[in-house]
């Protein structure tokens, strides 16, 4: 499968602060790729480098086959970018804003524009500066979807929006998902869990992992063991077990490479008298918390 976005050791440094470090990322065509991570992880910086808003300090990125530093002018006819902190021309009315944009895009679909205006209930005669945050995001999204972009890049698009607006935006985005690739960043795991096909986790400028949502959900399990008698943990368990915790006769951990047979045999090797085992699927939020805590524990252990 071709990649809509591909980066090679991409870094961005602001004087002494390295906001993005050696980012290697592939966003397959047709994917809905969620770049997640805590605030300050470098998601917005990474996206700005991809969009050639910022120049990379090292490494390179390809967007729709084009080097990101050459991304300007015409190539943006195939890219829709919406960011929470983008400065829109506040003096324009929504109607004029859409009319103004129309002339730049050969693929502008006036029918789709009308649909989006109707769907988002956009008041065409209102100035952008007088709109609520949610309405402004809707207007920006309408202006980024109406020309059928091949790639939609959304930087924290739902942050601070009320659930109703968020659902409307997600719905309209998903309606177009079949014809494009979507990269979006978010620090709210719950909001992307329902629709992202791929997820990448960025922390302190480094990509901890990136994979398909289904494989991520498949390989993580919350495991609970009930033992015949209390045990003392010996620290001898596989590396894939995270957050191992034991109360007298119950052991809980997160298995990060779940395979029913393999995991069962590892459990049997680690604990002699297991009375009951349960493997529970995990939410994305629980997976990320387990990863984050696991890494913290590993770092503390190294020290």
């Amino acid at each position, binding site marked *: 499968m071709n990649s809509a976005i591909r980066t090679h050791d991409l870094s961005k440094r602001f004087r002494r602060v390295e906001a993005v470090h050696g980012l290697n990322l592939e966003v397959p065509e047709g994917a809905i790729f969620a770049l997640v991570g805590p605030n300050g992880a470098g998601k917005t910086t990474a996206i700005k480098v991809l969009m050639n808003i910022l120049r990379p300090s090292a490494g390179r990125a390809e967007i729709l086959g084009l080097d990101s530093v050459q991304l300007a002018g015409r190539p943006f*006819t195939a890219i829709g970018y919406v960011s929470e902190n*983008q400065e829109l*021309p506040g003096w324009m009315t929504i109607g004029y804003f859409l009319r*103004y944009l129309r*002339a*730049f895009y050969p693929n502008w679909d006036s029918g789709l524009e009308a649909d989006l205006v109707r769907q988002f209930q956009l008041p065409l005669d209102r100035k952008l500066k007088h709109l609520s945050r949610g309405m402004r995001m809707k207007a920006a999204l309408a202006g980024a979807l109406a020309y059928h972009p091949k790639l939609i890049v959304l930087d924290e698009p739902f942050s601070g929006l009320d659930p109703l607006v968020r659902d409307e935006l997600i719905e309209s985005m998903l309606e177009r998902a079949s014809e494009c690739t979507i990269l979006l960043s978010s620090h709210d795991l719950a909001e992307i869990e329902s629709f992202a096909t791929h997820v990448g986790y960025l922390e302190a400028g480094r990509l901890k992992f990136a994979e398909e949502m289904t494989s991520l959900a498949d390989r993580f399990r919350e495991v609970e063991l009930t033992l015949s008698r209390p045990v003392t943990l010996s620290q001898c368990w596989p590396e894939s077990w995270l957050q191992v915790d034991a109360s007298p006769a119950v052991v809980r951990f997160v298995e990060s490479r779940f395979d029913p047979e393999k995991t069962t045999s590892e459990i049997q090797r680690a604990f002699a008298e297991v009375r009951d085992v349960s493997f529970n699927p995990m939410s994305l939020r629980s997976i990320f918390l387990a990863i984050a805590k696991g890494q913290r524990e590993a770092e503390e252990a190294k020290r």
Partner: protein
Amino acid sequence: MKQVLHIFRKDVRHFWKEIGLWLAVLVAFTWNAPRSWQPEPNYGDFVARFIYPVLLVLLLVVWWFLIARIVQDESLVGDRQFWITRPVEWKKLLIAKLILLFLFIHVPLFISQCVTLWRAGFSPLMSVSGLVWMQLMLLATLVLAAFALAAVTSTIAQVILACVAVVLYMVGLDALDSVVPNNSTLVGNSDNWQFLVFVVACIAVVIIQYASRRSTVSRFSLTAAALLIALIDVGTPYGKLIAKAYPAETGSELPVKFAFDASQSKAKGLGSDDGKNVQIELPLLISDISAGSAIRIEGRRVFAQSAQGRWDSGWRGGANLLLPSERNYLINFSMPKRIYEKMHSAPATVSVQFAISVLRFGKPWEVALEQGDFNVPRVGICSLVSPGLSSIRCRSPLRKPNTLLVTSSSTTSTCEIPEEQRPPKDSIAYDLLWRDDSSPADSGIDPVSDFTLFLTYRDSMPEPVSRFGPRLCPGTPITLSESSVSGRMRSSLSIPQFSLDKYRLPTSMTLTIGVPR
């Protein structure tokens, strides 16, 4: 082109109020300008003269504001602008902005200048090339500077701060000029280089910003250009350039001879005291200026040497005109007090070098003054400021005329002058209008050059003649002759055994309290 026009239409829609304000100020300026030319102003004209500079400043401020707003509408600084992730091509964006500036700044200004010329009594059609020149100069200076500053800032407040920085820089540059050993006004080479650096830097910054929005690089470029301009000021070998531009005089036929006037045994004038310098007066005799020519002293350099030390003033600019009838020439120069204190007790050898331009006057022509406006060939339109006084107010299209000597003889005055105020027969009053460049127009906005010829007697006159000066009335003929520079050279004079002490100018303070020198 479609995208260019699209952005252009958007800007017109957005900035119609700013454009309207600019046009309104321009109309007010155009309407007011002729009232400031009136030779005998009434109350309204006085107000108009006061308003003129106010409107001019306002015009420039609104102009800069409009340019800054137009450029910053698609801000080139920052990473949050919506347009940078849209298919806006930088060349087309830049062209759209330039078209807007051309149509709404340069074209209205051109029309305003044509109207002003027409109202001044001149044909705009005859001045098209000069007007284009004025527009190009404005583009290369004010517009380009405003454009470059707006391109490296994102708000009007930042533009204002940048302007303050520019003003402070220019004040600093001016101060630097005063401490540079040799005066740069004698040779224009450094000015040309500085102008070139300024223009190239501004154009480079605009292109860098539109092509790649590298604000740090652009700001650094502007700072580097500013430093380079200052460096050119300091580092130009003015001494060598002056020596080249004004070669030492050779040959037997010198255009002027200088000699020390030993008959004047001490300083006659009055000096000022700034605590750091003393002023020395040097009385000279001049001779051998041939008829039909004049000498313009462009600058001078004074050396003093005695057993106690030596001092070199460096080249200092300052224009003085010497006519064939002149016999005396008084110069005074400032010497640092500490050097004076060291050297004044013993006689010194003082050498003076003059950088001179030799002017040859062309065939003169005569014009009889009239009541009201009258045409003066090769000058423009003039009028007497007030009959019986010594001033003629003139206006010329685009620029002041070339170097022009205007004379009037007391014998031909048509004014009725009381006997005691009448000057000696054949006393010549004159004024010289100095202009030594061939540019087709003055720089600025106003296409009408407005100036006053103020005729004075060269020779000292007894009271009360000197109080009233030459009298000009309707019917009084004046003679005009254009001049051209026929040569430039350096002339030297050495005065041995010169007493600095004797020729030190007394200050008003020392006179008042009677402290002996």
